[in-house]
């Protein structure tokens, strides 16, 4: 709104007979001013002020009439009267301007109050989506390996039987091969399976990239288990393989300790127990220290680890000479270790997930419990 502008009246309008107006005295002018100031002060809003302006500063206002009356005065009086009226109009205009500012400020403040919104109700016009906890867990594990200077590799889910078994020293007649609960691709002579572990990527990496080699392999794996609270036919592993000169089981333990710490917190170490796998020798089962009880006896026994103080994580060992030979690596010069652990298991323990099915079903409420970085 244009503030403080006079209503631009036509000069003809009301400009006829100045002599018919009231006497132009100091008193009369002061009285007009006082009336004007009072009306301005009384104006409660911008509309009221507009009326006050029309009445007291407009063309037909007493002061405007007084102004026009100056022209009818005898010459010598004109200057004094002009000054008198001019000052009076100045005071009124000033007051109008001030009041205008005040009222505008009041109005602006009121609008902000009126526009206030209660934002305590949850928004949700477009809720954020989420990554799946298993992929994020696998990424975190892979990143921990990258942090140790390893590379991340991957391989096919439908895999050649040779890569899945023979390259890894699973003889076709060895019971260990039968114990893998393998999905076979039709026809049987196709020589293809759904990989039962991420370990075939060990052989692929060694053949393709040679040694020294430090690779970790996250990926999807398959066994013919029915889905229940603790089993799933489709699951995920993180495989590790390090082949170099002079690597020992101590390096295996050190790597697992680092990874356990990255996944479960400072001070969480790993433990090796003797075991058997065709592709490692010596072989070990690996556990990590229960991050809840940390191995301290509790009553009742710790629910996370069942009171044993350790949680099973996967299998590992020194890579079998036959694996190195199958991949064209000289076992007299190079040696190293491999390990593989379940991503589901890692996620379930990290996040207290009791039922495997929640990882499988794709219920968006499950995802919503987690952030994008977990």
């Amino acid at each position: 709104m244009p503030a403080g502008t006079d209503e631009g009246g036509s000069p003809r309008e009301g400009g006829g007979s100045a002599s018919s107006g009231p006497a132009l005295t100091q008193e009369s002018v002061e009285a007009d001013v006082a009336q004007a100031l009072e009306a301005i002060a009384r104006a409660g809003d911008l509309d009221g002020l507009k009326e006050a302006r029309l009445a007291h500063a407009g063309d037909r206002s007493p002061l405007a009439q007084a102004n026009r009356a100056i022209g009818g005065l005898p010459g010598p009086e004109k200057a004094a009267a002009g000054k008198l009226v001019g000052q009076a109009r100045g005071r009124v205009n000033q007051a109008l301007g001030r009041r205008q500012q005040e009222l505008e400020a009041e109005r602006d403040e009121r609008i902000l109050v009126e526009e206030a919104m209660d934002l305590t109700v949850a928004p949700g016009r477009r809720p954020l989506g989420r990554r799946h906890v298993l992929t994020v867990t696998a990424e975190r594990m892979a990143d921990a390996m990258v942090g140790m200077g390893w590379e991340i590799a991957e391989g096919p889910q439908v895999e050649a039987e040779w890569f899945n078994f023979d390259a890894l020293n699973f003889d076709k007649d060895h019971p260990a091969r039968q114990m893998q609960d393998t999905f076979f691709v039709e026809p049987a002579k196709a020589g293809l399976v759904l990989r039962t572990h991420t370990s075939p990527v060990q052989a692929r990496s060694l053949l393709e990239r040679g040694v020294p080699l430090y690779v970790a392999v996250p990926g999807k794996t398959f066994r013919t288990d029915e889905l229940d609270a603790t089993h799933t036919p489709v699951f995920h592993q993180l495989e590790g393989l390090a082949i170099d000169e002079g690597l020992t089981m101590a390096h295996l333990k050190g790597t697992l300790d680092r990874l356990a710490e990255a996944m479960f917190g400072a001070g969480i170490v790993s433990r090796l127990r003797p075991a058997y796998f065709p592709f490692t020798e010596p072989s070990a089962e690996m556990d990590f220290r229960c991050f809840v009880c940390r191995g301290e006896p509790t009553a009742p026994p710790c629910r996370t680890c069942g009171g044993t103080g350790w949680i099973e994580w996967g299998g590992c060992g020194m890579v079998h000479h036959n694996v190195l030979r199958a991949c064209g690596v000289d076992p007299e010069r190079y040696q190293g270790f491999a390990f593989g652990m379940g991503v589901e298991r890692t996620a379930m323990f990290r996040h207290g997930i009791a039922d495997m099915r929640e990882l499988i079903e794709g219920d968006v409420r499950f995802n919503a419990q987690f952030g994008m970085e977990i």
Partner: protein
Amino acid sequence: MRVPVDWLGEYVTLPEGVTGEQIAADLVAVGLEEEGLHTSGVGGPLVVGRVLEMTPEEQKNGKTINWCQVDVGDANGSGEPQGIVCGAHNFAVGDLVAVILPGGSLPTPQGPLTISARKTYGHVSAGMICSVRELGIGEDHDGILVLPRLLPAEVVARLAPGDDLIGVLGLDRETVEVNVTPDRGYCFSIRGIAREYSHATGAAYTDPASLPVDRGEGEGYAVRLADEAPLEGIPGCDRYLARVVRGIDLTRTTPEWMARRLTEAGMRPIGLAVDVTNYVMLALGQPLHAFDLATLGGPVVVRRARPGERLTTLDDVDRALDPEDLLITDGGERVLALAGVMGGEDGEVTPGVTTDVLIESAHFDARSVGRTSRRHRLSSEAAKRFERGVDPDVTAAAAQLAVDLLVEHGGGSADPAVTDADQRPERPVVDLDLTLASRYVGVNYDLQRVLEILRLIGCEVQGEAADRVVTVRPPSWRPDLTDAPGLVEEVARIDGYDKIPSVVPRAVGGRGLTHGQRARRAVATALAGQGLQEVLTYPFVGAERFDELGLEDDDPHRDAVRLANPLSDEAPLLRTALLQTLPEALRRNVSRGSRDVALFEIDSVTLPAGEALAPVPGVGEQPDDEVLAQIRSAVPAQPWHVAVMAAGQADRSGWWGRGRPVDVVDVVGWAHAVADALGVEVRREQSERASFHPGRCVDLTLADGTLVGWAGELHPTVVQRLGLPARTSAAELDLDVLVAASDHRTQASPLSTHPLATSDVALEVPRGVRFSAIEESLRAGAGELLESLELFDVYAGDQVAQDRHSLAFRMHFRAPDRTLTTQEVNEARDAAVRRAAQDHGAVQR
């Protein structure tokens, strides 16, 4: 393998008062994982009681109960008789019975039942008089356990009211169950477990196989090893020892201690002959077979099956034999058994009929037994052991132990003659550099300690520490020890894996993630940022899904890899697109009340395998390049895909206002977001794809025309067939194509800071012309000054001809080096319009 603790204690000295739990923990340290701990489940106080009074009281329900006063000595703390209500009647005043007092517990199928004093039948019954069944020590239903009827007189004579019965009844017995890894056949015996326990703890071990064995005199029962087709050059049987016991009474019952041990070890007592052979197998790990000697006509001949031969095995299955099956035959003709797997009906011992028994104690090739067992899907305790390796040197001792037990418990006498067809090869030796253990394990082992451990586990070692390299002959029960790392494992295992230090290796460093891996993370994060939820669905589908998706019969997506042994016959195929398995996840969410749901999945899909077969060249050797290439090329292509599927509201309604349903534009936008996340420019071409609304589907392509994928609204019939919410929209893109296209370093262009000039044009165009085509013409006509343009309105109605509509475009112009004049802008705009007019008959309004 279930290991009764008292049986274990017979072969190895157990510490006083050792618990099953402790034994299990000790065995874990040498690699025998605990599977379970089995106890009687009975908890005391369980004491001897003498029935002082019993008053029968008839109840309203017609049942008669006995209100008994039982002397339990001081076991109840007062010395007063204990009042107990009992429903059974097979006992009398004066009998000694087993009484469980309040606080004790009994096993039930529902879990432990804690006994307390309770009001019943008008009395306070303070405990229970137990039956054998309640105590879990027998199946006798007849009622109360009256102690003299179960226990030997000399034991009963020592019992007085109040005496603890837990130990007397053997209810404190524990059985440790351990998991035996497939390389340790010898641990399927108490002998093997005892040896391992000794290794773990240092406890003194007595080999149960070192018993006096009859050398035999005279000619034994004729045995011929006649394997004419050894597998992989290894004879199917390299030792067959036969003993004969005559005049035994197989109707005699198995001694209670043996029956109990068998039961505890998880085997059911069946009859004396079978029980003795099972007992020896559990004790020494040597499977035995007993034949009825009277039914045998000729020598025992071990040979491979002939074409067409059949055998009905003891599990009553008539089996067609395979020429690879190794058989035990009577005189080379009549088939008696699948060697090392299971016997047949012919030659079986029959209690009451059989008096003379031939005991077979043989060593069969692991591979041969394993193949036969798998071929016939016939698993047995014997096969399980042979497959994992049986000690070829325990044969004679096992036969001896069986003979001794049969004679002792069945009467009769053993023939002095022993047949031992022995063709065992010499056990191979391994050259071992003693320093290898330290170099391999990372523990600084003293070389003397290495030698000591090797000898401890039974190796014969030629050489001393000073020689550094020694010759090691592993023990007969460890056929798995064939190389130096295997011996190193023994050193590490016996010395303790807990001694291995933790050293983080210094990796050589490298690229970390591949570009593809980083790209997939970026795509997933972008989609989640757009409000989509990541899911991981199973890749298994059935052909029915292809029908539901409306795929034509010749649609390449139907050509899927098939599993030979799917989990469900309904879903034997591997998905060729992620959209084939997303519907379940979407439906599940809707049915669980999440109606506004946008899902995405990133995974590889499996394209059909070619005709090529992947060779399987075997272990321990690198295949030549040609074979490797064949293996690699037979593996089907498995490109990474990303798919989205969404239904419900895109913008949710709420207190802020009304929502907006998700539609095809959202899905096309998400598909674009995937490409944008990777910095790849894609083009859109209207298309018709199976599964999609014929007028609402668009292909995305790279600039060079390579197909990336498609996005659209699902066809209403598909939506209906799949039970999806109306207007479900979806997209599927080949991520490998996008990843390859994104694998370059984007070069930045400098930004112009000169002012932007905007000009709108409205063009009337024939309706058939695609927006993208007009856009392309406008861009081409406008030239380099055009920075961007957008379609902001589409109008059809009275103001334009029926077959045309009006498109309003806003064009933004900017020059890199100057402020554009109005004239320049107008010229560029007019050029754009001219081009659109020329290409498509567009008319400016």
